[in-house]
């Protein structure tokens, strides 16, 4: 699933190395438009619903953090 996630991320922002980056929000690498696209794609691909409440920096600062968020939603 992690691979799928990385594919999605790279499609939206091909210029970012998602495997290594870990300050995506705090470092200003991703902006709000990216988040929206990412969230939309993830919702679609994994059939989850990332609510507005989850739009916090700690959830999106790295690909790993995003992965953890998705897992959490899937377990509910």
């Amino acid at each position, binding site marked *: 699933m992690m691979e799928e996630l990385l594919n999605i991320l790279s499609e939206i922002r091909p210029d970012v190395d998602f495997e290594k980056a870990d300050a995506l929000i705090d470092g200003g690498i991703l902006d709000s438009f*990216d988040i*929206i696209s990412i969230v*939309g794609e993830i919702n679609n691909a994994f059939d989850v619903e990332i609510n507005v409440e989850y739009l916090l920096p700690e959830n999106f600062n790295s690909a790993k953090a995003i992965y953890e968020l998705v897992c959490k939603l899937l377990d509910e």
Partner: protein
Amino acid sequence: MSILSIRFLAFLAVLLLIYYLSPVRWRWVVLLFANIIFYLSAGVKNAGFLAVTTVTAWGGARLVEQINEKYKELRKLCSTKEEKQENRTSCVKQKKKVMTVILFFNLGLWILMKYFLKASPLGISFYTFIAMGYCIDVYRGKYPAEKNLCRFFVFLAFFPQMLQGPFSRYDRMKDDLFTGHPFSSDRLGEGALRMLWGFFKKMVVAEKLGCVTASIYAGGDTSGGIYVLVLLIVPTLQLYADFSGYMDIVCGVSRMFGICLQENFRQPFFARSIEEKWRRWHITLGDWFKDYIFYPISMGKWAQDLGRKCRKKMKPAIARMVPSYISFLVVWTVTGFWHGSALHFLIWGWLNLIIIAGSMQLAPFYAKMRERFHIKEESKGFILFQMIRTMLLVGMMSIFSDAPSASAAFSICASLFTKFNWGLIKYPLLLLPGLEGWEIAAVGLGLILMLIVDIIKEKGYEIYSVLRKIPMPVRYLGYAFLFYFVILIGNTGADLTGGFLYAQF
């Protein structure tokens, strides 16, 4: 009853007495009756609409929560990932059915009453949106639904926010509303002071500035040409004084009960761009549209599909903006529509959109220009330039919301270049028609006071603590004079039928 009437002040005084004499546990019941009395004073007929929205929103939220609970229980019995997924999908489908009915019904009712029948029950544009926001929050699982219909009604129909908002959020208000606060004379005084300040802004500054706007829009000698420049500044100041003054009154009233209403204004004239302005002006409206229209649409399936298609055809840098821009278009169309159904309101909304989107796209270009001309982005001069530019842009757009029609708005703008009364610039006082000399002085004093207060707040100081530094006799004398300015200069008739600029919403 109008907030600006002796009747309301008497009602408030009696209510405060009863509220603080009641046992703490029952104080929310006092508010319940206050809401009922306040709303009924606007006419029994209209109460029906409020009741319908209250019941459907409360019921719908509870139903959604029950569906959530039911499927959660069922999910515990699921063993495979597919089963869990199916469970989730069915849950969402069911919830969506309920939400669709609730949303369609209430928003449809709003559109019907406001735009077709043109007979708006009091506060319908506010309580409808607050109720729908609440339902969506419960749908998203942000907080549990309110089980008690009466308590929900206390929140939804809280009388200070009935006429002009702010758009409250249930989770932020419920503690204040339902847990009574001990009596505090300090809080009472602060609330009263804030009310007085609001009355001053509304009844002195906004009222007088309104004379200028009305004179210019009335046509004839005092319109067109150089007066259009006046229209770039005065109506915005008027609207700010009017609306933020009303908010001060309403927040002051709430504070007296220990309830904190969300702020709608955060020193808007310090905004450096139109985008920032909307984070400082009518904040709760902007937040509501962001949380309940912008994000849902831009993160929704349709917009994402479109974004994906665009990513295949164009550069990713542009493609990623597509869902957001679509969302923007919807948000600004609805924002314009919320202010009025005529074309010129929509144009006003779209102008906002064009300028915001434009400045986003042009951001790199602007950066290059700044470098070329050696302008430091954080230099005081540049910041001031940005603030003034923003204010003038807002003023220009306001011509579209204030004019009686789109064609009128365009012709007013055109007259800036076609009417040659620029010689009047030698007589600045004449550029404020409808006001006598002493009134201009009073308004000027009021605006300076407002600016001082805003500067203090922008620097991060809490206004009450700043005021407490002034020695008490001087401070109280200042309050007394402020009170007298309101009753002597303010438009104190019996009941102000002129109403607020936002009262039609």
